[in-house]
């Protein structure tokens, strides 16, 4: 560690990336647990009222987009009620009344207004609206978060370091586009979605940094040392200087040119592709010499404030990704539900075992058909480059249904005279153990497999990777997970189809080495991991990896494998 100056304030978190950033803190709080009354001046009344109206518009447009997509009557009804609550004239009247006549700030006015209605509903003693109270609390919290962060969000500029409770990947990308150079989150583990995206964007990031939003003030100069997992505020001059020197040294030493070889020392070739979600990541794909996009996530099309929802807008998005890359682009159909749904449509006791992925898509036909239509429309111009990947398959029936949907869209477009790629390969995400265990039976029905090791680990180890308390149980190279992967490869071989791996395991040295040994030849990972994995896989003959993989299956814990790998890597 560098010379630590005692005047610096250090905040510890978990490292979720590499690199150092020095910049100005912007706080994103997004919380409303305790709103204190604060008085405003008469001339500020107008501004506070406008903040309310702006937040109202944002909420309304979010919900309206949601209700367009979700056509089942149950969720549409919930959204309709929420719309009515947001449009309720009495809410606005009451909020404006508090701002104008009591000269209190908009966040407190919202808090008081909703609290008043919640109290009244409780007082009425009726069971009829118990569920609505929860809705009201949710809307209140979202409202307050919106009004209190508006100004902060607008102040993100070049050189900002975002200090947040928690933000969504979409928010992160929009901050990145505004010039943010680092991210600190109080919540979330190193595998949280925003952390993964920040890694992909090459942004220094730390997570689980307790109290960061309280210790740091807006506009403070801060140093974010991602590898060390620390945030330093009020740095002493000496500290600042030493970090500036490190950044300069890094800039000089970086960028080793890749030699373009992707093969073991005895000539077994492999392909490294990129996992991406946003257009903003494209430069990293090219920079790191990825041979295509092995996983294009599409959920961000549905949520957040940069919404691209209509078919035309989807076409434009896919087109940009295809024209900005070479090689195959595997588009994963919307994998919403579980941790990724932007708005909770209905509460489920076990969202990860619930209505998500293909299960949701087959119920929400319009959402599915729009996406398929958009993909096929783009395919005409990019013959042979697109593949379609279906998330969360657990039974064969779902495969039959999705094939039928694809056929239908194909026929429709052909008869409309639209030029399409009629042979877009269809692949399944292998993330539920039922698919891995019967890989041959599933494999016969499709063109390829892509193993999603994050969810496969989650469903095999029964661990929610987003839960900070148990995230150390999320061991993606646990021998049990590796056995399922081996079964998948065997089943795919028998069925004569290709299999790739697109989870984080592929971008992990231990994982990638074992995967190559199991017979995997296509890996998709964060662009940033490609050079490291390339170097490792280029460094030895195939039989070394095969021996490592064989040994890995005999071991009993992930820890044993880590130790064995250390020996393997340094020895021989």
């Amino acid at each position: 560690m560098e010379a630590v100056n005692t005047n610096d304030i250090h905040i510890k978190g978990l490292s979720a990336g590499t690199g150092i950033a020095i910049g100005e803190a912007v706080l994103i709080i997004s919380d409303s647990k305790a709103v204190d009354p604060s008085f405003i001046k008469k001339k500020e009344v107008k501004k506070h009222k406008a903040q309310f109206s702006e937040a109202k518009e944002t909420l309304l447009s979010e919900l309206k987009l949601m209700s367009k997509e979700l056509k089942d009557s149950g969720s549409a009804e919930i959204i309709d009620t929420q719309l009515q609550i947001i449009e309720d004239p009495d809410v606005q009247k009451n909020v404006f009344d508090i701002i104008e006549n009591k000269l209190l700030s908009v966040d407190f006015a919202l808090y008081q207004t909703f609290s008043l209605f919640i109290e009244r509903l409780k007082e009425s003693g009726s069971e009829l609206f118990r569920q609505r109270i929860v809705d009201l609390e949710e809307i209140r919290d979202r409202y307050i978060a919106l009004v209190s962060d508006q100004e902060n969000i607008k102040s993100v500029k070049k050189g900002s370091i975002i200090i947040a409770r928690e933000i969504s990947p979409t928010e992160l990308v929009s901050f990145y586009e505004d010039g943010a150079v680092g991210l600190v989150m109080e919540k979330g583990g190193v595998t949280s979605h925003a952390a993964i995206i920040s890694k992909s964007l090459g942004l220094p990031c730390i997570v689980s940094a307790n109290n960061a939003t309280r210790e740091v003030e807006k506009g403070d100069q801060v140093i974010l040392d991602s590898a060390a997992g620390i945030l330093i505020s009020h740095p002493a001059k000496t500290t600042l200087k030493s970090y500036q020197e490190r950044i300069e040294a890094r800039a000089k030493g970086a960028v080793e040119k890749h030699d373009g070889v992707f093969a073991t020392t005895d000539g077994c070739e492999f392909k490294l592709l990129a996992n991406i979600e946003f257009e903003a990541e494209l430069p990293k794909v090219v920079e790191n010499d990825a041979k295509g996009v092995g996983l294009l996530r599409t959920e961000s099309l549905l949520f957040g404030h940069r919404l691209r929802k209509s078919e035309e807008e989807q076409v434009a998005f896919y087109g940009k990704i295809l024209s900005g890359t070479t090689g195959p682009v595997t588009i994963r159909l919307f994998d919403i539900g579980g941790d990724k749904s932007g708005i909770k449509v209905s509460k489920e006791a076990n969202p990860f075992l619930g209505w998500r992925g293909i299960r949701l898509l087959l119920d929400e036909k319009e959402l599915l058909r729009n996406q398929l239509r958009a993909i096929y429309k783009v395919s005409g111009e990019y013959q042979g480059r697109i593949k379609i990947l279906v998330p969360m398959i657990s039974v064969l029936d779902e495969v039959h249904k999705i094939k039928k949907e694809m056929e239908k869209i194909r026929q429709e477009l052909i008869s409309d005279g639209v030029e399409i790629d009629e042979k877009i390969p269809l692949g399944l995400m292998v993330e539920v153990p039922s698919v891995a265990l019967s890989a041959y039976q599933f494999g016969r029905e499709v063109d390829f497999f892509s193993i999603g090791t994050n969810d496969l680990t989650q469903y095999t180890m029964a661990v929610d990777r987003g839960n900070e308390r148990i995230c150390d149980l999320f061991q993606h190279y646990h021998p049990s997970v590796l056995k399922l992967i081996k079964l998948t490869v065997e089943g795919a071989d028998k069925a004569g189809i290709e299999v790739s791996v697109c989870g984080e395991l592929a971008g992990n040295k231990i994982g990638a080495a074992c995967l190559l040994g199991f017979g995997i030849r296509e890996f998709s990972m964060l662009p940033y991991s490609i050079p490291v994995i390339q170097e490792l896989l280029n460094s030895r003959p195939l039989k070394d990896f095969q021996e490592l993989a064989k040994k890995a299956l005999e071991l009993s814990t992930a820890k044993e494998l880590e130790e064995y790998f250390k020996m393997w890597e340094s020895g021989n």
Partner: protein
Amino acid sequence: MIKKKITIENSSGLHARPSAALVKLAGKFESDFYIYSYGYRVNGKSILGVMTLAAEQGAELELEVEGPDEEKAMEAICELVSSKFGMEDE
């Protein structure tokens, strides 16, 4: 201004769906719409207002409509209430 007394006949009262339907309908008219019940007055165009009435089956409500399209509005609202909000009684 028109006033009219009505009774809620749905067996589970003016719960979420009927309330939503009532507010949605009232919002289509220009006239103001208020509901009086046990000495309370709520805005019939406010979903939160209507919910706080918590009107059970058999509750008597007085409707008050005032504005340029008050007659049409009152007629439509009464029809909705007497049709049990277009829902099969659950």
